[in-house]
């Protein structure tokens, strides 16, 4: 059974969730990862959705944070203020999944504007990056996505470098970036490559990154999903391949 690169991404994303975590997540691959975690090692993990959905039982496959498939079986249907204020800013949500057009060496994220091109904007991303203690980013590894410094900082990572987050008044944060080439991590420092995806090389990472990331001494290789994880992902979590068109193509 060949594992697709983006399936690896989802599996590694799922591993960032601990059992019992509260996780704020949007749609797409992060939601697939969070749902996979709930179905495997983290049955006690609970989801919060920015639109006001508290602890849903997701049915396949939501395409929006207000999709009825994402409101299903929830503990509460509330408001954005409840989700982002009463849970995230309140400090009850440990892990947040984020995307963005750019993520820089200090894990700052730009989702507002790149080179005069208008992007969607922050949404809840700034709030999540400000208040969660762990941020996970799942993204394709492209050079333009990883500049040394974002053209615009929408959501804070470690800002200009060590100590700046605390100086700005923000709490401590751990960032994990999972790409189709590697895993990068940072905690009040620049992103460091801590693992490679199976088959990926250091050189490929360097070639596709706009800054020169450090590599951990003990560089690991990301484990592929086991057959049961793959089955869940393919048959139960995204059976219609909404987020895996490449699975249809095969």
């Amino acid at each position, binding site marked *: 059974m060949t594992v697709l690169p983006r399936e690896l991404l989802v599996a590694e994303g799922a591993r960032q969730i601990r059992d019992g975590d509260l996780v704020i997540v949007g749609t797409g691959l992060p939601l697939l990862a969070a749902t996979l975690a709930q179905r495997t090692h983290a049955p006690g993990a609970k989801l919060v959705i920015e639109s006001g959905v508290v602890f849903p039982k997701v049915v396949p496959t939501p395409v929006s944070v*207000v999709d009825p498939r994402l409101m299903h079986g929830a503990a509460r249907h509330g408001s*954005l203020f409840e989700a982002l204020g009463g849970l995230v800013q309140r400090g009850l949500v440990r892990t947040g999944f984020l995307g963005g057009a750019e993520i820089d060496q200090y894990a*700052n994220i730009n989702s*507002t504007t790149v080179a005069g091109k208008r992007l969607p904007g922050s*949404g809840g991303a700034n709030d999540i990056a400000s208040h969660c203690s762990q941020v996970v980013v799942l993204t394709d590894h492209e050079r333009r996505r990883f500049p040394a410094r974002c053209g615009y900082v929408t959501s804070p990572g470690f*800002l200009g470098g060590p100590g700046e987050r605390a100086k700005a008044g923000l709490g401590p944060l751990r960032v994990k970036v999972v790409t189709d080439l590697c895993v990068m991590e940072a905690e009040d420092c620049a992103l460091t490559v801590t693992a490679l995806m199976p088959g990926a090389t250091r050189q490929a990472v360097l070639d596709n990154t706009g800054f020169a990331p450090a590599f951990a001494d003990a560089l690991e290789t990301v484990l592929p999903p086991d057959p049961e994880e793959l089955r869940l992902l393919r048959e139960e979590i995204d059976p219609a391949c909404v987020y895996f068109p490449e699975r249809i193509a095969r």
Partner: protein
Amino acid sequence: MHKLLTAAEAVGRFVTSGATVGMGGQNINRCPMALVHEIIRQRVGGLTVVGCNLSLPLDMLVAARLVVRTEQGTGNLERYGTLFAWRRAVERGEVTVGDYSHLAMASRFAAAALGLPYLPTRSLLGTDLLADMVAAGVAVESVDPFGGRPLVLVRALAPDVALIHANRADTAGNVVIEGVTSHEVDMVRAARVTIVSAEQVLPAGSFSDRPEQVTIPEAYVTAVVEQPFGAFPTSVYRAYDFAEAEIKEYQGLGRAGDEALREWIADNLGASFEEYLATRDADGRLRGALADRMRSLV
């Protein structure tokens, strides 16, 4: 007080040129499409559109050249892509934008809803987003006088008129929303005027046996409009799913250009929302299918 009007009457009376319009709904859910269509029909322009996630209704208003400014957390349709007309208008400088985080926008509405000039937040710190807000005079960097930590004060925002679509309302203006309410409750409580369209309008007092289930009480509601499928092609929780093909078609035209969108508007909006629905779904089969699908999901 009897507040039931037609969409044409409500928009004609309460949405004025140059107004700041608080946009209800989020993304593909419960957008006030019937009311927005009516604004386009009546050509009410110079609008500032504010909300948290702005989606289809904003893009349509921009394509119709009725918008001069937006303030929001995001402008997009998630899986269905960017808002093409809005993005082009912003990039051409025809529409100015105030960017916020969702919590910052929600806090602005909540501040106005509570009669306060601002609310504090611990979001935004250290970012360009904050720098832009400070430069625009809508945020101030501050320090918590109790604990000494940095804090941001975000300025209250009271729309001139808020537009929402709900599951049910009564003629007194009491509103019941099912599913999430995004930013809408505080936005409505903040607004000077609120127009609510609803799938169903019932006699005044119809909810008074279960007042806890009233999402927004009549104290905040100016006009009520009855419009079944009034959020189409977006969804209404427990009533109908969103119409993916319709949204994809709109986005396809949006990608093609503003002219294509304006043609679609001219060809489809008709004289009323009922006419529009009849144009898009003559035999009602699509609507039936969306309602069936929602039933299978809740």
